[in-house]
């Protein structure tokens, strides 16, 4: 004899089975999404590396110097350098020295400060050394 409760349980069983199938299907879809996001993450990480390498190449000292020379900047010669007094050792790492002894500031927003370059002065004019530096800078950037 089939009781009413059996029908109810049977109905539950069917519902559960369908729910399992449905959940499994959704789990897979979500997993596929997760994989896609992971792949995208990997691609972005690769992009980051590529951009870092690119930035390092663009900010390499030889290129910065070449650009500086193209902009008609050059190293200050000895007569244009004022050496600061000897106050205390190892103090003026950035402030005093960079303003007077060396133009240590980055050129053109480059993150690494590279060999000093300043605007042309009264004594300016492209020296033989500067020309040589241009050649070297070009060579180095091949």
């Amino acid at each position, binding site marked *: 004899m089939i009781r009413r409760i059996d029908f109810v349980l049977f109905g539950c069983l069917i519902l559960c089975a369908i729910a399992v199938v449905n959940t499994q299907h959704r789990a897979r879809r979500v997993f596929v999404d997760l994989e896609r996001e992971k792949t995208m993450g990997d691609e972005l990480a690769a992009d980051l590396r590529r951009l870092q390498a690119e930035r390092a190449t663009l900010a390499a000292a030889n290129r910065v110097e070449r650009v500086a020379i193209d902009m008609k900047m050059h190293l200050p010669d000895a007569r244009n350098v004022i050496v600061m007094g000897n106050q205390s050792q190892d103090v003026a790492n950035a402030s005093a020295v960079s303003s007077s002894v060396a133009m240590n500031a980055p050129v053109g927003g480059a993150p*690494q400060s590279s060999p000093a370059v300043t605007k042309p002065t009264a004594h300016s004019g492209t020296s033989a050394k500067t020309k040589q530096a241009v050649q070297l800078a070009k060579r180095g950037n091949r």
Partner: protein
Amino acid sequence: MNYRGNSALMLRLEGWRASFILVLLLGLFVALVGRAVFLQGVHSDFLQHKGDERYSRVISQAAYRGEVKDRNGDPLAISLPAVSVWASRDDAEMNPGQLQQLATLLNMPADEISRRVNEGRGNFVYLKHQVPQEVAQKVADIHIPGLFEQKGFRRSYPKGEMMAHLLGYTDFDDRGQDGAELTYQRVLGGMNGARRVIKDRAGSVIEDVENIREPRPGQDVVLSVDSRLQYLAWRELHAAITKNKAKAGAVMVLDPRTGEVLALANYPDYNPNAREHVSLMQLRNRAIADTYEPGSTLKPFTIAAALEAHKITPATIIQTGNGTMNIGPAVIHDTHPGGALTVSQVIQRSSNVGAARIALGLSPEAMWNIFTDVGFGQTPKMGLPGEAGGRVRPYRNWRPIEQATMSYGHGISVSLAQLARSYTVFANDGNVMPLTLLKQTGPVSGRRVISSRTASEVKDMLELVVKPEGTAPLAQVRGFRVAGKTGTAHKLDHGRYSNRYVASFVGFAPASNPRLLIAVMIDEPSTGDYYGGLVAAPVFSALMSGALQILGVQPDDPASENYAVPASGSAAAEET
């Protein structure tokens, strides 16, 4: 309807027929159950395997090789995703148009590609390694059947040739082959991971089954190098090589307080990003792998040994007479007659006769000890492949003439790295520092070789070398006290000294508290000038002044007007 009349229904069947059918059906059922048991139980592993093969895959997870960075965190070597293009000889088909397109993209001749694809044994052939991803995408877009891509990495060196020798390079599998890449392979190298997944019909992963191995990316290595100083060193070395039409050269910059290598440049060099046509000459890291007779740069050690043995003081008078000295059949020459010189002047004017006289007052053992203590004859172990140890012969076999020539750096061979390290003794109060390529964070302890007093006495003498009466006024740096020593050595050619030279200069600044130690070596300058004071000292000066500016070192001699150096032609000549 009357069925009773149907005679077929009236037929009496024999009993065994029903039993037969029953047994037959039961038998079939048993066979079915047996088969099921066989498939599910006995044979299940094989079937499971076959099933897995159809949808489960082990995919590898690539691990990046670690980055190499300079001491300021600037990337020097970085791995980028790249692709190896390979072809299946059986399946590859391309028309001439596609071949030409492929050749252009891969930057290789078309007949080279068709030769590789059509000739040779086996099905699998690589066409090109380490193709950048953008190019690989374009190659894939041509849709050539039988052409496949395999993911991998390509090492990129943003600083190009200026760091080439220091960093070395990696092979197609991203394993270090030379330089720091080889030395720190164990740290840099990553371990690829693997995981088992289930893929659907479209090939996308739908379920993770198990993680077989976690990918382990390589760790970054922070070198002691400062890429700004490295660039200066590279630039000044190139300028000097060009100016003097020299064959080769090397420059090394150390922090004498820690033994850290801040820069190491060589000429000739190569571009590590394009190594197709690189010769062995270009690959050679001369600063560490080549040894040469250092010449006068060794005199300070002879003097230091004599000072330690209390044979002399800096003011002791040494007779150099007319600039020649006979030892048995051999004659030692100075380039200029010196007369009576103090020990300080022997260094300042680099008198061979003076150095030889001082050496002959010493025991061979005392000289050998100081040479060995500062590291000559032993590999510096700074951590680069191919470091040379040079040669110091055992003192028991020294003849007097050999002891005399060794006092001014002949009959002994050293590398530039060894020479640079040895001078840390004078820059560091008598302690020699171990060389290292890695950035040091804690204090580094050196090894005491000579007393602090001797070190400071020799340092004072080395400061005289760059004065106008010395051999290297061109080594002066405006605003700083500089100490250093020139060297000019004849090169050996088939066992005889030739008229080819190695010019060198080793020095440090600021002399009051040395922050940088620079060693310069120029091999075979060929424009007439060959003295260390004329060829190598200007490189030192330019590099030192630039480097001190970059590091923001406080001048220790701001009042000096020492920029008024004599023109190069009138700079004091130097003995070999």
